[in-house]
Structures are given as C-alpha cells and as structure tokens.
C-alpha cells in the first residue's frame, strides 16, 4: 500500500509543474491556431471574423514562402555542417597537450557568451563592411577587390556568423566526448596497424557518434528560429528571409496577425519534418 500511497502523493506533488508546463505550451499554441483562422489586422479594423483556411492558402501562395523555407534549411544545414566538422577538428586539437591549454580553451568557448545581436553587429560592421571592415582591408592587402559580404554572398555570410556563435557549443560537447575515449583503444588500434587517419575514422569518429547527434539535434532546435542575426544584418533582404523572419514581417511589418499565425503553424510543421529526418539519420546513435 505504501507504494500506492507514495505514488499518488508523487502525482499530487508533480501536478503543479505539469499543469504549468502544459499551460505554458498549450496557451500559445492554441492562440496561434485560433488567430490563424481569423482575419485579424490590429491597425486596420482589428478582429474581422473567421475566414477558414484563407490565411494558410495566402501564406503558402506568397512568392516569399518557398524561398524562405529554402533559406531556413540552407542556414540550418550550413551551420550544422560547419560546426560539426570544425568542432571535431578543434576538439581533437584542444585534446592535445599544448602550451596554454587552459587559456586556449576559454578563448574557444568565449563566442558562446556573446549575445547574437552583438556578435552579428560586430561581424557586420567590423569584419564584413566593404569599406572599413577587416576583411576588406585583408582583401586590399592582397590586392583583391573587397567583397560586399552581406549583399554579394548574404546567405553564406549569415551562415558564417551563426557558425561562429555555435562552434564553441559543438566544440565543448565534442571535446568532453573525446576525453572520455579509452586511450587503450587507440593504443590497441595502433598495435593493430591502423595509421592515424584510420584510427580517427574507425575509432574516434564512431566514438563521437552520440555526441555529434546531441550537437546536431540541439543546434537544430535553435537554428530553425535564427532571427537576431538576420534582423541586424540584412533585414531579410537578398534572399536571407527565413521562415521565422517571414512570420515576423507578416505580423509586425504587415500588421497581419492571422497570416503570421498561419505561418507559425507552418513553422511547426517544418520543424517536425526536419526532426523526423534527423531522427531517422542520427537517432539510432542515441540507443545505448
């Protein structure tokens, strides 16, 4: 009986947290769904009644929709690739006994503490500015024509900025994973005649599988909703309009809450599609 008692007591005690979290999630979701079926223009008459699926149709048929989906996927894919590849390499490097290891590690982790808005502004004005930016100076030093990063290669520039922010996270997780690798396994592979590249490919990389999965899944959650970096750099121009930025424009710039809400529902669907693909691809790594 004691277990039954304690079980119901446990349920009672968990209830407030569960209810709070459920409300936290359900209230915005239901409000989004509610508004997505309404014609709701705050500055142009407010609530103008139910209009069925009109918002959904309009959002998808807008010429900005598919480009925004592809921009979102390019940013997510690009940043994931760069952070995972460079993260593995950096983690390997930081795992070596090097002089000033502690300081180097702190420096590598530092970008993670810079706010996205700030880092995007720094990149935009100090590095990528075609006249005064450091890159422009570097290009000129080698006699090349400076690139106007944010207008000529805007999507790559944003991928670069966001990658810079997320690289420390990936590196940190991968470094701890590398440190947990049993050194005897590497030695065994060495005795077995595996040169360094093969040791990496057959021993280290499979060992990192789970950590890479964690990095990919967590980053995807945050990268799907990248906003500040676009807002302070291109304002969504030059094909850098992601789905979340498009929703922002519909709600705040066009003052169309209903249309934006329909976009929000599409964003949920997109996130789920991405999640399904990711779990198919890397989810098996999480099984013990």
């Amino acid at each position: 009986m004691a277990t039954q008692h304690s079980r119901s007591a446990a349920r009672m005690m968990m209830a407030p947290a569960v209810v709070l979290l459920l409300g936290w999630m359900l209230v915005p979701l239901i409000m989004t769904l509610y508004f997505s079926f309404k014609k709701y223009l705050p500055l142009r008459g407010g609530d103008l009644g139910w209009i069925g699926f009109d918002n959904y149709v309009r959002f998808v048929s807008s010429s900005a929709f598919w480009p925004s989906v592809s921009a979102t996927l390019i940013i997510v894919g690009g940043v994931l690739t760069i952070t995972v590849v460079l993260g593995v390499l950096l983690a390997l490097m930081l795992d070596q006994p090097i002089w000033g290891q502690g300081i180097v590690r702190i420096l590598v982790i530092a970008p993670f503490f810079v706010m996205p808005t700030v880092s995007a502004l720094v990149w935009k004005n100090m590095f990528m500015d075609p006249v005064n930016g450091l890159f422009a100076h570097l290009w000129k030093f080698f006699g090349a024509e400076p690139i106007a990063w944010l207008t000529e290669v805007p999507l790559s520039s944003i991928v670069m900025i966001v990658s810079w922010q997320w690289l420390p996270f990936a590196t940190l997780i991968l470094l701890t994973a590398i440190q947990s690798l049993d050194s005897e396994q590497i030695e065994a592979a060495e005795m077995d005649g595996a040169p360094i590249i093969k040791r990496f490919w057959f021993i280290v990389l499979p060992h990192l599988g789970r950590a890479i999965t964690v990095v990919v899944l967590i980053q995807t959650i945050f990268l799907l909703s990248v906003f500040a970096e676009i807002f302070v750099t291109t304002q969504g121009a030059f094909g850098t309009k992601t789905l979340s930025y498009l929703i922002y424009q519909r709600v705040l710039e066009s003052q169309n809450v209903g249309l934006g809400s329909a976009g929000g529902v599409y964003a949920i669907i997109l996130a789920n599609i991405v999640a399904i693909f990711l779990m198919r691809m890397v989810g098996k790594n999480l099984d013990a």
Partner: protein
Amino acid sequence: MGRITLEKVTKSFGNVEVIPPLDLTIEEGEFTVFVGPSGCGKSTLLRLIAGLEDVSSGAISIDDQNATELPPAKRGLAMVFQSYALYPHMSVRKNIAFPLKMIKMDQAEIDRRVEGAASVLNLTDYLDRRPGQLSGGQRQRVAIGRAIVREPSAFLFDEPLSNLDAALRVGMRLEISELHERLKTTMIYVTHDQVEAMTMADKIVVLRAGHIEQVGSPLELYHRPRNKFVAGFIGSPTMNLIEGAEAAKYGAATIGIRPEHIDISETETKWKGVVGVSEHLGSDTFLHVHETGLTEMMTVRVTGDVNLKHGDTVHLSPREDLIHKFDAQGLRVD
C-alpha cells in the same frame, strides 16, 4: 620466431627514472611472466617492448633485428590490454578482423582466419554481437582472438585477468596456457599475482622498482630465491623471515622458512608459540602463530585435519635443510 632482446634499456618520465639500465633476453616460444608489486615498472617494460612508449636509451631487438625505433605496428607483436580495449561500435567479427583489414588482406582470407580464431576460442555463436553484449570472459577471448589472427611473433598480455572474477580467472589462466601449448609462440605476460606467474610461466622475471631481482623458472624461484625480496614475493602464503639472534645461529642476517616447511608437534621442539587466527581452506589450514619470540607472526601450513584453537600453544620445528639464509644485504647465502 619471437626472440626478444633488451640491451641496457632505460626509461625516464621527466626526471623520474622508471627503468634503470636493464638487460633481458626472452627466448623463442617462451612463456615469460613479468611479476612484481604495483608500480615496479612491469607494465612500462611491456609497453616499451610493444613500442607504445619510446625507450630513453638502449636497444630492443626482435628476432635479431633492431626494433628500437620501429612503430608498434611494424614490430609484429600483438597485445591484449587490461581493459581488453575492444572497439565498442564494431561487432565481434569486425573487432577480430580489424588488424587484418588494416593490412589490406583479402576478404576471403580474413573470413577464414576470423572463423578459425572464433572456433578456437568458442566465439562462433557470438560473432555478430557487440562487445557490450558479452560477458567479461567472452570479451577477454575476443581480445585474444584479435591478437591471434595476426599470427604475431609474440603476444603481450597486460594484466589480462585482473578484471575477471576468481572462478573465471582460473579458467582463463588455463585457456591461455593451453593456447601457448598449441601455438608455441613467445608470450610475455604481466601480472602482480604471483599465483598466475607460478602456474603459467616457463620463465618468471621478478621486478622491483624497475630492477630485475631474479629471472628463472617458477621452481627455481621457489627453491632458490636469490634475495629476500624474491623469497617474500614468491610463494603463498609468504615465507616467514626471521632476523636477529635466531638467524645468527645459522650464520645469517635473516633466515627464511616457508609455512609449508614447518612441522607442528605436541612435544617440546625448537620453537613454540600461541595460535591466533587459523584460516581453514579445507585441504590445508594456515595457522597464524604469535609469541614465538622470533617475529611478530609466523604462518604455518598444516593439513586440514589439524584441530587447533585460538589460544592453543603449539610447538614448531622447521625442516633444517629447507631454511633459506640471507646476508645483511638481503642476498642469498649458501
């Protein structure tokens, strides 16, 4: 093949000299055991032979070829690690095939050798499992399988049984000995357990602080320990070492008598004492005898039917011809 020679090999980590100059020859086909207390440098010595550590000076030659500068893979040795070091994400089959795949052997030959090793080691039913799904003894066998498929000139074992429970350890000890009988390949085996050393070795190398204290067959070490350290280290329970006046009667600084070489009797004999703890093993009983006036405690091995209780007085007589004598430097005197 598989003759390994070490000439004036030393190893230092920073300023700490772990292995002072050391010479050793391991003959072809020999089962050599490095034994010593922990921290005596036996594992380091093995890693030097394997090539996982570089020697600070001196030369290692394998089959009369200088191997001092060779990378581990080129030395033709295979090693079984204490943690087994299996590759957790590969099946047993892939684990065993890994060294063959690294030398780009053709697939048919790899399959043949893996199947061969698996049947020798009773692993055929487990080939498609992952190491994580195997018991300790099976993992141990996979590690051995991975070593034998390469047909190395010598096997190196680094405390391979220390992670197994007692019963399994006895079984694996036997399997490794049988493997050696069958393959006739040189084996070097590191352990801190003198029972393993005694039961398996053709030749035992007793190490202390990087020094070789004695090299010899198990029985040589048992019957004629070269010094006090070897005398105390080899044999279980350990030899009773007696110093002072009693030793002086024999013209030595220290005398040693093994527990199994002391007889007990009811009547007055040379030594007497009071029984403390008796450890009953069934076949034998180890008596801890106190208040002998010779050492703090003497261990005496008697047959299992002797019935002496705590506090009983017991008379002891050592077998005079089996007393070991050591001088002030701890060296054997004959």
